[in-house]
């Protein structure tokens, strides 16, 4: 989901810790090292990594291309090959028929069938292009805050894991408890820690 879309969903995070100085060099290096790897010609079914905001299909972080105003802006791209099960089954059965005919056997063993299925999936995954999904990231480094343009559970979890792996920094989601802790005094924190739900109706 893009910052420039007409309708967006946003999850907000606090970033714990800081990158090693010099900041721009470190960030450029880590984004480049963890950039999305194309899998269209590989027998791999998914890939995830950082990419450029302005051109998500040509990752390039040179020349501070990810800096806009006081923000860092880049994207998290997840590519996935979705091979329809019916296509796998069709190709699998065709291969079994062909092998039985060529070998003159009446049956194939379980291991042979397993091997055929793996070969079919590998063959198809080389032929089927990956579907890309791009989610923008806005990082206000001074405020240690990140806006991630997705609220999908699986996407957010993948983003959190990949961010921590890439930058060695932890993310804390903003939700009622963490948002409350931003503005409370010590005595209010104690009250929050003992808080129980109100009953508006008996």
């Amino acid at each position, binding site marked *: 989901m893009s910052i420039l879309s007409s309708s*967006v969903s946003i999850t907000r995070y606090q970033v714990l810790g800081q990158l090693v100085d010099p900041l721009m060099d470190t960030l450029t290096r880590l984004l480049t090292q963890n950039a999305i790897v194309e899998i269209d010609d590989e027998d791999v079914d998914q890939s995830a990594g950082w990419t450029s905001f302005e051109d998500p299909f040509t990752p390039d972080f040179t020349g501070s291309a990810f800096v806009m105003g006081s923000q860092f802006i880049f994207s998290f791209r997840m590519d996935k090959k979705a091979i329809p099960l019916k296509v796998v089954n069709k190709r699998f059965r065709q291969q079994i028929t062909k092998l039985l005919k060529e070998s003159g056997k009446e049956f194939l063993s379980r291991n042979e069938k397993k091997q055929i299925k793996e070969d079919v999936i590998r063959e198809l995954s080389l032929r089927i292009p990956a579907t890309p999904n791009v989610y923008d990231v806005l990082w206000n480094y001074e405020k240690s805050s990140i806006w991630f343009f997705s609220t999908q559970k699986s996407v957010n979890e993948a983003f959190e894991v990949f961010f921590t792996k890439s930058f060695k920094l932890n993310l804390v989601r903003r939700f*009622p408890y963490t948002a409350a802790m931003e503005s409370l005094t010590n005595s209010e924190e104690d009250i929050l820690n003992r808080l129980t739900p109100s009953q508006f109706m008996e």
Partner: protein
Amino acid sequence: MLDISVAYNRYKFVGYEFLTWLWFVIEHDPAQLNRVIQENINFTVGNRIMLQNAVHDAVETITIKGDDAGLEEGILALKKGALVTEIHLRVTEEENEWQLTLKGENLNISNLKLPESGQIETKDDVEGAVLEKFFLYEKIMVWVDAIYCYFIKIRLSPEWNDVVVPQIKKWILQ
């Protein structure tokens, strides 16, 4: 500070109470929100509200949606002990309108629509467009954050049980 995953589940109810209180304030005393954010902003409930009743063992979810939907069913659900879990809001500042869905469980903002902003015609327009969008995103987030901060201070004060809860009860029953 509590373990984050424990805190997430344990304090969902604070988010639900926040949205229920927000609906009450929008209906009962909308000027209170202007005092909180110190700007002349108009908050109204939009075309969707979701409530959940977990008073009994089973969880019951009630969704009211549609541009002309009456919210009486929502009040009825509140009478039965439900709380608001998601609310669609329209926020206007002069001629500008933001629309968003606020989720109580995690305070996520979804389906956020901004006021009209400049069109991108050339590649050189992108940075300006992003900064303009960012400015508009930040505005609504600052307002929502200020209201939540105000709510949580009240929620943790004696005023909550002494004044606010009785007022909300009265609103639900009227």
